[in-house]
């Protein structure tokens, strides 16, 4: 409290007003696979990064375009137009509880009913087929009861406060901020990119939810230069499943692959990105030499233009020689064999 008072004479480092908490919620909900998020405030917006076991990372960037007003007075003489990479160290950086933040943002019911759609795909046949981001005729936004969401952060050690107002009800929430964990980003070699695919996110979602039926532990992603182009496959105790996007032309907006590229990832992790797949309109799938997978989702949030949600995954170690002659790994055995 004293810190807030002390800093009161100057403006808080960061202050932003959004006309709706819903968009923020939708975006942040995409990366809710871990309890804590690292937040970085810059002149361009807010960056939320979440990671799990150093092998999966999710980043949401809340662009300042999402806010009606966005004030960020960075401490120190750092000019805002500087190269963002060099400025990173000086930017306000802290970590907060993501689940608490999401809970706050949806306090007025911003939550999408269909958030659990991935786990129960056929529970709501109607809702499942509408893009979740689409405004509902009876949503508060449509009825002109839009609330206001104010975010502010005074400085190091002070809480991240959220004030939500909706039809006369005000909720004030101060979330404790923690020391940033300083997690390193999963390195993705842009210059050694092996594959780049841009496609409809919905198809990726469909494929992943299709594969989840076999309750697999691993997901294999293979990009071919020829016929099946892109195939995702997984094997579980009940059998194996694969989804192939054979007609590359219609399905894949961009498809660049130097040579056959195949990697496996932990299925549960890819599945954690399902919310983003569901919400996003397009996805860019990229893989580098080392097998790091980057999924960039383009999300069109109502009224907020375009936002991006990024995921990076570290692959399982594969023995390059083994993959074609039926790798004798226990659960993979079935599929690999038949594939050969």
């Amino acid at each position, binding site marked *: 409290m004293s810190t807030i008072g002390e800093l009161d004479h100057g403006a808080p480092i960061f202050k932003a007003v959004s006309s709706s908490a819903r968009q923020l919620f939708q975006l942040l909900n995409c990366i809710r696979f871990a309890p804590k998020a690292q937040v970085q405030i810059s002149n361009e917006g807010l960056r939320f990064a979440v990671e799990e076991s150093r092998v999966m990372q999710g980043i949401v960037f809340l662009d300042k375009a999402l806010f009606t007003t966005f004030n960020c007075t960075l401490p120190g003489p750092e000019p805002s137009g500087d190269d963002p990479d060099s400025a990173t160290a000086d930017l306000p950086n802290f970590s907060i509880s993501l689940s608490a933040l999401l809970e706050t943002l949806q306090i007025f019911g911003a939550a999408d009913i269909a958030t659990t759609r991935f786990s129960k*795909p056929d529970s709501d046949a109607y809702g499942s087929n509408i893009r979740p981001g689409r405004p509902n005729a009876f949503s508060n936004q449509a009825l002109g009861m839009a609330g206001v969401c104010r975010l502010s952060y005074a400085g190091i050690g002070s809480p991240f406060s959220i004030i939500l107002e909706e039809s006369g009800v005000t909720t004030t929430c101060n979330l404790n901020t923690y020391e940033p964990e300083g997690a390193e980003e999963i390195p993705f070699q842009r210059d050694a990119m092996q594959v780049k695919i841009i496609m409809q996110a919905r*198809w990726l979602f469909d*494929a992943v939810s299709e594969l989840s039926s076999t309750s697999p532990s691993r997901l294999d992603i293979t990009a071919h230069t020829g016929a099946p182009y892109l195939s995702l496959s997984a094997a579980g105790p*009940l059998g194996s*499943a694969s989804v192939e996007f054979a007609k590359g032309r219609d*399905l894949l907006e961009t498809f660049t692959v130097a040579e056959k590229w195949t990697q496996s990832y932990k299925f549960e992790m890819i599945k954690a990105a399902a919310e983003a797949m569901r919400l996003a309109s397009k996805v860019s799938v990229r893989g580098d030499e080392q097998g790091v997978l980057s999924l960039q989702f383009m999300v069109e949030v109502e009224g907020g233009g375009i936002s991006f949600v990024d995921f990076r995954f570290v692959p399982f170690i594969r023995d390059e020689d083994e993959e074609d002659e039926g790798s004798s790994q226990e659960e993979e055995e079935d599929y690999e064999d038949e594939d050969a």
Partner: protein
Amino acid sequence: MAVLTFTINPDALGKLHDALVCLGKFSEAVCLEASSDRLVLTALNSSKSAYASFTLLGNRFFSKYHYRPLRSSNQAKEKFTCKIYNKALLSVFKGRVADPSREKDTAVERCDVSVEDGEGKTKSRFVIKIVCRHGVLKTYRLTFESVAPMHALFVKESANNSWSISSKTLREFVEHFGPGTEQLDIYSEDGRVSFTSYTEKIMSGNEILKQPLHTTIAVDTLEFGEFAVEEKLHIVISVKDFKSIIAHAGITNTMVKALYSRPTSPMQLTYSEDGILSEFILMTIGESRGASATPAPNASRANSKRPASRQPLEAISSPKRAATSMPPPPTTAAPNLGREPTRARVSRPSPPPPQPSLQSEALFVTEAEDRRWDPTNFDEEEDEMLLWDTPGDKETVTMNSGHLQTSENQNRSTNGHPGLSAEDGEQSYTIPTQRLAPTQNVSEVRSSPLFVADIILISGRSEVCLIEAKKPEYSDQTTK
């Protein structure tokens, strides 16, 4: 080499899914049996009391169907049989039942299934290839178990009762059956058929009692397409199984035909629609409700004798099905279970005399019911009545509750009537109205022992008189 290949169009895919959902309600595994012109999907539940089968006709249901018998060592097998975990099949066909016009991007165009089963190099897999729009190909390779399915047999010739009714109508009925009910009784009398769903299970251990719930739907026989059933025949099947069937039958408007003979013999339900023949065989439960519909008090007594004659019937007619879906084993416990709720229901209009037999009521009658009919519940009643007594009275009463004769002795020996009223004066004024006449019936005295206690206090001598006059055994004890 593929043993079996077939192609399903999106329309039939939905139907296949519906069938699988229905089979899933009976068993977690589906048995497939392919022959040259048809594919039969069956499921038998774990207690072997219900059997479901869907016959998919090769030329009508599938857009392509080809069965190539496997030429094994000696001769070609006529049929190919296997067992697949239903969950795997369901997840393959799930979600595609949705209107294809809405889900444009991932609409299914075709589904090719091939079963590969070979010795040696080829893997035995049930391969499902789903071709979606835009050339998205989804391939599933499911493992299967190569076992012969178990089929339930139904002898049509012996089934003299039959009826058929629109599935939509049945579906409406089924909606009324409460989720807690377990049995469904079908009964017809005077041109009316009643479907009664009820539950017999009242207790579990000695814990929470399940509320008996009865829902009766009476239908005129005119509602039926065909109706030829023996009058006043109770046939009882499991509500859950019936609901599962109707849930599937009700999807389309079709005629459901039922065939059965008598209780404890199987009942067959069949219906068909474009290329799918659905058949269900359900075990019927012994006529546990008996003649309970008549509210005469002797009915319950007659009932209690019935189990003895019925029990062997069940055992003989279907030994393997003795354990039907009824939770308790159908040994002597089952008839008791069956009788009790009936009695409770019947007792409202005209309560039958309390049953002398105590063997069942401790467990199977609700507490309130139990107390009402219990003729000799000394302890509880006294405890209750105690609340109304004045404190001065308590001591004597507690003694009383233990042994009647003790207090009598005490009272008689130490106090005469006036002495007592002086000592417990307050008490004698508070309960004067409860004083009993000396000529009271013994039965009355017995039914409310506390009154006896009061009398002892107030007028010890008259009490002794009363006891001596009416109940020699008491006087014997006291004088000793």
